[in-house]
């Protein structure tokens, strides 16, 4: 993966830059020792690594502002980092960058149940936002599978989703306001605990901008009352097409499950071997979860059962109790771990129109066979967000390249059928060079304008999202 040539002026000024950072941060918040900076050399896209020039761990908005002002003056690129769980390389450093980690900013600032919001520092983990309000009957809805570790800052940067967004939406639909520190150190309040922005919806474009427009230090998040209960069913089919049709029929019938998860045979087998959840050995498996009171759940599941049985499933499994419900989810929740057990894998994230599901699965099967790498599919079927897992051997020369090429072809296929490159992981460096597949030059140019306005010197996370060739003149300016 090509990265920009580090700025030698910055590299040679390391001592001065670090000394200046030490004037505005406590000693333990500036890391420049080569061995220690290695802890920040990659995120969850571990195939690519590069230790940064230095890393800083501020505790307040004022400290973030002071750091950014110095980096702005010194023309040092800054790569913001939440918890470093990006699968797209969103927090991958360059050798001339300062990593700005928000992990120490993890407090709850305000909880307001009457107005249903919580204000937190952005380094707080996703799950601990829910943790702060759970005992009072509330939760924060977006639930990326890394929610135990991932930070709200990263969720906002990538506009993270999760298994339950069919009903609750993704981060942007649950974000009310942010404190944004601009690259020159200016602190702005955007949005707040009210609905509708003043003027343009800047919050909407900040969310999902992959840390390129500013550093979010605080966020006001919408919290929701917890549903009375939730219950999954498991439905097995002997064909992907039929499973896809079943999803479509459920949606058309007016039932809105909170989650519809889909696993194909390679994935079912791997999960079964790993987690022994007792899944049927079939071609396609759906896990459908609905919410409400026990009576409401019964009513919705009865309707789903009628629809599913019309498609002759090989199995329709209901959960009689909490334990059986857990077993239904067990395999799905361990899918990534199961894959990691048997192989190295690359996780894709394209989204497709739900109607193209059977075609896309068939094509992925053909492409996988042609290249000789197995692909297991697990995804959010209700919204078309696919997660094909390409299995490869990192120790085998050429396998990573083969895998990346297959991944790129699968993403091109997603765009071809009317979908997109990434549904919830973000572009990062991973899909940067495919942006031209989805966007015409004018479409990209309009996005670059936004970056020009927010970060005229192009210092914030500059090597991400857009092909380097497209941004070269701006980064050099």
């Amino acid at each position, binding site marked *: 993966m090509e990265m920009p040539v580090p700025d030698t002026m910055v590299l040679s000024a390391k001592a001065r830059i670090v000394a200046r950072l030490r004037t505005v941060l406590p000693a333990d918040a500036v890391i420049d020792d080569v061995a220690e900076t290695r802890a920040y050399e990659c995120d969850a896209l571990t195939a690519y690594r590069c230790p940064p020039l230095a890393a800083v761990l501020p505790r307040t908005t004022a400290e973030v502002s002071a750091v950014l002002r110095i980096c702005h003056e010194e023309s040092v690129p800054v790569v913001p980092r939440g918890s470093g769980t990006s699968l797209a390389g969103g927090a991958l450093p360059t050798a001339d960058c300062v990593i700005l980690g928000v992990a120490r900013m993890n407090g709850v600032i305000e909880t307001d149940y009457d107005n249903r919001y919580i204000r937190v520092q952005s380094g707080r983990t996703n799950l601990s936002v829910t943790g702060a309000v759970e005992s009072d009957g509330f939760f924060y809805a977006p639930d990326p599978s890394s929610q135990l570790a991932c930070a709200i800052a990263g969720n906002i940067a990538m506009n993270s989703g999760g298994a339950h967004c069919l009903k609750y939406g993704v981060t942007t639909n649950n974000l009310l306001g942010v404190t944004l520190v601009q690259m020159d150190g200016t602190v702005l309040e955007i949005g707040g605990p009210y609905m509708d922005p003043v003027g343009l*919806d800047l919050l909407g474009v900040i969310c999902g901008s992959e840390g390129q427009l500013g550093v979010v230090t605080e966020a006001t998040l919408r919290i929701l009352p917890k549903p009375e209960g939730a219950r999954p069913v498991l439905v097995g089919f002997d064909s992907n097409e039929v499973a896809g049709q079943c999803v479509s029929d459920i949606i058309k019938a*007016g039932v809105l499950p909170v989650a519809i998860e889909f696993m194909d045979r390679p994935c079912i087998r791997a999960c079964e071997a790993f987690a022994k959840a007792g899944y049927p050995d079939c071609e396609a498996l759906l896990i459908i979860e609905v919410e409400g009171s026990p009576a409401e759940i019964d009513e919705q599941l009865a309707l789903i059962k009628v629809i599913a049985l019309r498609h002759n499933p090989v199995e329709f499994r209901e959960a009689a109790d909490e334990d059986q419900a857990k077993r239904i989810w067990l395999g799905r929740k361990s899918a990534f771990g199961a894959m990691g057990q048997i192989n190295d894998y690359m996780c894709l994230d394209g989204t497709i129109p739900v109607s193209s599901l059977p075609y896309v699965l068939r094509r992925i099967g053909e492409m996988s066979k042609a290249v000789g790498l197995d692909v297991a599919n697990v995804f959010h079927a209700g919204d078309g967000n696919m997660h094909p897992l390409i299995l490869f051997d990192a120790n085998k020369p050429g396998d990573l390249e083969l895998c990346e090429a297959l991944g790129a072809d699968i993403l091109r296929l997603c765009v071809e059928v009317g979908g997109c490159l990434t549904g919830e992981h973000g572009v990062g460096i991973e899909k940067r060079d495919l942006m031209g597949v989805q966007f015409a030059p004018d*479409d990209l140019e309009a996005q670059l304008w*936004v970056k020009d306005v927010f970060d005229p010197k192009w210092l914030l996370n500059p090597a991400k999202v857009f092909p380097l060739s497209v941004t070269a003149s701006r980064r050099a300016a």
Partner: protein
Amino acid sequence: MQPTSEAELADFIRSATGPLVVRGGGTRSVGACRGAVLETGGLSGVALYEPGALTLVAGAGTSLAEVEALLAAEGQRLPFEVPDMRGLLGRTGDSTLGGVVAANASGPRRVQVGACRDSLIGVRFVDGAGTVIKNGGRVMKNVTGYDLVKLMAGSWGTLGVLSEVSFKLLPVPEAGATLILPDLSDAQAVQAMAAALGSPFEVNGAAHWPGQGTFLRIEGFTASVAYRAAQLQRHLAAFGAVELEPGTARWAEIRDVVPFHARAGDVWRVAVKPSDAPELVARMGAEAVLYDWGGGLIWALTAPGSDLRARLGVLVGHATRIRGDGPGAFAPEPPGVAALTQGLRAKFDPRGILNSGLMGA
């Protein structure tokens, strides 16, 4: 000017020599700006409707009524409950999808499903230089590049002229019911609405119409609506009697601000933190108010020419004058934010010809 294709729209804008006033159906425009009128009604037609994928793609000039009828035939709808502003603003004509998006028009259901921008998944538009730009697409989950879709929603035609819009849809529920708390003060009403919205019973409308009552809406499968209605009645017992009215017919009146239709005066739309609402209303000196979104939206009727913003003072939120004369329909932005929005406008509309001066300029 009434282009009938996106290419023609781009030509018109590219060759424009002066300011343009962008106009969909003209049913919900706010404020005033001058220039040659550019009507988008010719950019009409549904390009794609997949009920099984809850997705609609249509030309920006497509009639809202036509789309609503098409969706209703499949038992689906636009989630965000588009208000009909014709009665309030004294307009006629057909609302267009593009106008709905440009205004980010959202009704009572916003408390549950979000605003228009939350259901908008893709746009095509022509910027102020005449360049066609697309963003988003037709899928529900999409984080590929910057989200200009959100930026276009509620930009009132000042960044570009929409040519095509895509929405995610929701099924129309089988049943609905309205709970009415007849005699609450404004402060009690906001508390009752907060209690209802903070319950697990999926309230998707919470409005207070002083003199008429406090209204809560629930929708879903028949048995579920009955169950939740009963639970809510119990949950809100501390606020006095809770009457149950079958159906949801009353919500069109709230959505369209019917109580102000026959009355003269300026109309303001004030977005606030819900619990602040009663105290702000006391400061407003309004002739009438209607609370929606659990108190988060205040519709206020004031004497013509009143400076409501001056009366409100420092405010967590903002006020837009929806009806009334003179400049300043949109609230001024804080300085740092204004610099960003002016920067964006200069990029998207370098000649400053699109609805020039309408918002924050």
